[in-house]
């Protein structure tokens, strides 16, 4: 039965090489003759049937005779490393391998031994085994087998390669059953016990003992060693777990015995030494003969120490760090493009003064500007060309200059030396000139009735300039006109009770209504529309009602020393510049404290000014810059004024540690004039 399986292909012809294999053993292991003989037998044998498999699985029987001389069919497997299901093709492969290896005398001996066998067939059954160097006798049965094999037949004569097919199973029904007894009655009667069981179940369901939608049992096991970092209930309270970064999987080059192409040449290793420490490769592949010869990790001690140091020095408390985008802390300001026009670039320079330009003033229409300088001159300039129209050589330092805001009265008020000089600027048509000349003439001076005390101010005609000189009792510092152009005020800082003086041009009259002031006065300005008056002392700004002659408000600046003041054209907002480089914006309706304090200059602020039409204000400082701001005051009282810094105007040079001494806006254009200590006036345009 073992050989009854059909074979599709006939047995392969026995070539000399296969035969040699049959005799000389398998070249893959070359260990034993047993292996060799088995390989040949397997090569010659038909495909193993299930029975053959079973037999192969059985333990090998010991044989008394050494089996190397015999060719047996179906030798059980065991010793050979090559797999048990090897077929003919495998043996051919081995033969090829053997052939490829045979480059020496071994191949010749193979050929010679094969020749010997053919010679001896049928007659003398002896064969020489090179390997064991002995002669092997072949029995008659073996010789028969060999001859059959050489003919391409099955080795055993009683094996029929093409037997008839036998079907082992029967499908036809046999006539008799096992028992002829009739079916019992109980097979047809309903079961009493089943009924009882059903009644029980029904009752249990009705009473609710059996529940169909039972909640699933939660598994009451847990991960003993499992990864529990991700689960929310295992989050630690203190230091939160920061998983270490995953290391990369090792590649071929990290093998103990990598291929040659991974090994850097000596030249490459030398190049590594030239590289920077950071750029150098962390791992250089090396080859070792065996895993055993791999040395210990050389940095183990160092890294262990570092790790301990890390653990030792690691902070035990977690720092609270708030990640805030610094951009988000900035207030939302409109872009500068939307706030145009504002002065940006200097296009015109007014050159001519021989000393620092201390003060400047723009005429009401914006056609001319006047400037006073320490070189003892007052100059009148044409704005559109930058030409100097007139020079008044007054002969003393000009501290402050102010143009009459009324276009019909082209009169300049200037603090020259310690007194005030009213000048006819000699611009405007003939009628205006006549009226101005009349205005600038003092009649017979009426002696004041002070008697014992020297009068605060004396109005005296100035013949040199066809103007009026107001001789003050002490040195005056600033002069400021009322918007109508008739009243003006001068400040005498050291004047004590007569420090702030009000003058009326048409009546040539002066008085000093403010007796008590909180500190030395610095500047005084009129309210642009109402009958109010602002006096800035060193630390405070007093707001007076001129009709009631009383203090309405006292603004506390908190500054060290106020240097300048300007009133918004609306009248409710005041900016104050100080000598410590700070600028305060007061909203007088809001509070007596500053609404905004801007620390923008590094040195003293010399002048602050509002634009009369555009929502602009500017400050000039001794640090040679002027800053321009957008200062929008809304009609809606609930909305706070919007202040946006716009531009830093540079260009003036420092002279004797003084920078920009005055700044004034053009009354109609968004232009800024700055007067510098470098004896230059600059016009910045949009």
């Amino acid at each position, binding site marked *: 039965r073992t050989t009854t399986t059909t074979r599709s292909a006939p047995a392969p012809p026995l070539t000399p090489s296969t035969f040699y294999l049959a005799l000389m053993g398998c070249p893959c292991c070359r260990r034993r003759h047993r292996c060799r003989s088995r390989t040949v037998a397997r090569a010659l044998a038909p495909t193993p049937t299930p029975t053959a498999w079973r037999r192969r699985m059985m333990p090998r029987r010991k044989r008394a005779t050494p089996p190397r001389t015999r060719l047996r069919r179906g030798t059980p497997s065991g010793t050979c490393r090559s797999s048990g299901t090897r077929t003919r093709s495998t043996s051919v492969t081995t033969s090829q391998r053997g052939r490829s290896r045979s480059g020496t005398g071994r191949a010749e001996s193979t050929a010679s031994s094969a020749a010997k066998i053919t010679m001896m067939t049928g007659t003398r059954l002896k064969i020489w085994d090179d390997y064991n160097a002995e002669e092997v006798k072949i029995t008659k049965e073996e010789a028969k087998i060999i001859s059959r094999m050489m003919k391409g037949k099955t080795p055993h004569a009683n094996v029929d390669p093409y037997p008839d097919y036998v079907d082992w199973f029967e499908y036809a029904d046999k006539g008799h059953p096992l028992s002829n007894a009739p079916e019992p009655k109980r097979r047809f009667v309903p079961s009493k016990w089943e009924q009882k069981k059903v009644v029980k179940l029904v009752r249990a369901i009705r009473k609710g003992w059996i529940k169909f939608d039972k909640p699933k049992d939660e598994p009451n096991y847990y991960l003993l060693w499992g990864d529990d970092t991700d689960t929310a209930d295992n989050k630690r309270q203190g230091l939160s777990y920061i998983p270490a970064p995953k290391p990369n999987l090792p590649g071929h080059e990290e093998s103990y015995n990598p291929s040659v192409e991974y090994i850097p040449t000596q030249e490459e290793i030398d190049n590594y030494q030239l590289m920077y420490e950071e750029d150098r490769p962390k791992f250089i592949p090396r080859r070792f003969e065996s895993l055993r010869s791999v040395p210990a990790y050389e940095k183990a001690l160092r890294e262990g120490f570092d790790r301990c140091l890390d653990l030792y020095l690691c902070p035990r408390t977690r720092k609270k760090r708030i990640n805030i985008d610094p951009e988000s802390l900035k207030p939302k300001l409109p872009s500068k493009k939307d706030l145009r*026009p504002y002065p940006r670039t200097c*296009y*015109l320079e007014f050159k001519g003064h021989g000393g620092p330009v201390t003060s400047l003033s723009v005429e009401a*229409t*914006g*056609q001319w500007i006047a400037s006073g300088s320490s070189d003892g001159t007052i100059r009148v300039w044409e704005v*559109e*060309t*930058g*030409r100097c129209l007139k020079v008044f050589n007054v002969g003393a330092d000009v501290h402050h200059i102010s143009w009459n805001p009324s276009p019909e009265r082209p009169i300049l008020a200037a603090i020259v030396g310690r007194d005030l000089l009213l000048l006819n600027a000699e611009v*405007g*048509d003939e009628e205006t000139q006549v009226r101005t000349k009349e205005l600038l003439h003092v009649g017979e001076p009426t002696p004041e009735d002070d008697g014992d005390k020297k009068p605060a101010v004396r109005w005296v005609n100035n013949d040199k300039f066809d103007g009026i000189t107001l001789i003050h009792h002490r040195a005056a510092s600033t002069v400021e006109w009322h918007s109508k152009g008739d009243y003006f005020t001068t400040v005498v800082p050291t004047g004590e009770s007569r420090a702030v003086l009000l003058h009326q041009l048409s009546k040539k009259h002066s008085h000093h209504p403010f007796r008590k002031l909180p500190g030395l006065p610095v500047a005084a300005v009129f309210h642009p529309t109402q009958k109010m008056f602002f006096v800035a002392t060193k630390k405070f700004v007093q707001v007076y009602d001129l009709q009631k002659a009383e203090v309405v408000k006292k603004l506390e600046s908190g500054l060290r020393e106020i240097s300048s003041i300007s009133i918004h054209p609306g009248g409710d907002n005041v900016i104050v510049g100080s000598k410590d480089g700070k600028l305060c914006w007061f909203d007088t309706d809001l509070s007596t404290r500053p609404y905004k304090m801007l620390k923008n200059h590094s040195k003293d602020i010399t002048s602050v000014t509002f634009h009369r039409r555009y929502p602009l204000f500017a400050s000039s400082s001794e640090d040679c810059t002027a800053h321009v701001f957008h200062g929008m005051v809304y009609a809606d009282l609930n909305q706070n004024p919007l202040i946006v810094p716009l531009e830093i105007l540079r260009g003036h040079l420092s002279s004797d540690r003084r920078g920009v001494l005055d700044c004034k806006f053009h009354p*109609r*254009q968004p*232009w800024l004039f700055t007067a510098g200590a470098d004896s230059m006036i600059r016009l910045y*345009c*949009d």
Partner: protein
Amino acid sequence: LSRMGLSEIVNSLLLSAEPDHQAQPFDFIVDGELVRMPLHQFLLAKGISAERVLELEYIKAVAPRKQEPPLPHDDWVSAVDGSNPSFILTGCYDGLARIWKDAAECTQVLEGHSGAITSASFINKGVETDGSLHVVTGSKDRSLRLFKFDTSVTIGSSKRIGAYKILPGHTSSIQSIAVDPSRNMICSASWDTTIKLWAVEGSEEDSDTVSVKKRRMNSDASGPEESQLEGSASSTLLGHTQCVSSVAWPEQRTIYSASWDHSVRQWDAQTGRETWNMFCGKALNCLDCGGEGSSLIAAGGSDPVLRVWDPRKPGTTAPIFQFSSHSSWISACKWHPSSWFHLISSSFDGKVMLWDLRTAWPLASVDSHKDKVLCADWWKGDSVISGGADSKLCISSGVEIA
């Protein structure tokens, strides 16, 4: 391959055609635009495919080739008029207007103004009426003066001439004057925000009908006492809110004015109505009309950009051209009297620049002034004259415009 290489090619071609050809620079036009960079860059910038056949049109390069000796003045030169091919009229800050014959010698000095002259213009531009030319000047002393001078004066003596007519009426300094194309009317722009129209001849013909006109003896005029007429404005154009800095009268009916209130307005000269108003955002100093059918407006002002608008474009105030190579205020701009494309601009940075509408780069820049340039004009169609704060009138000639 840039302009120079292209010019060399054209010159060599022309030389092969006619042997006595003089090599000269050329400008090249591609699709109505001047080539101002190497040709491959130009193609890249304009997105023109290199596969296409490129049509290059060549014209003579427009640039001043010669600097004439400057004409010295006593003070800043604030006004210049070069509309007469044989005389140049200049106005000066010392209150005197001067007539220069053939850009060489001052033949007449027109006196009478007590303030700086801001603008001056020939009334009968090229034509002489009975051997004399009429001139109007506007000054900072709030008056206009009309002068008449004889053209056949011998060279060698500068004759002093007084005005034959004074036109007072403005309450502030006059900034600009313009004469209408028919030579009968003058309009003047002033700091007092008004534009006034004056008749040139009207008061002489029917002197009795003008009520304000009075005859008076000019006492302060030196030499023989001569009579002076006074005229009054025939109409006043109100509307500007700030100083009107410049006026132009290109056609009989329309007057353009530029002002410091950031607007350019168009007026109907007959009715005195404002017909068009454009807000431009900058205070303007100068304005001129020219271009195709003298319908484009060029204006410059308190920034270094010379802008050109097309008033025929409805609903937009965006300038169609912007030239921004100057570095300071622009003080004057003038279109070429015959060319549609060329204009000059002068600036306070001391430069006079020559522009072509077909390119954004200046064709040429005249740097002969040491200080601010206050006025500039074309003369004889091929010269650029400019006066400045260095008290000189510079003449750059040899501008060949075909």
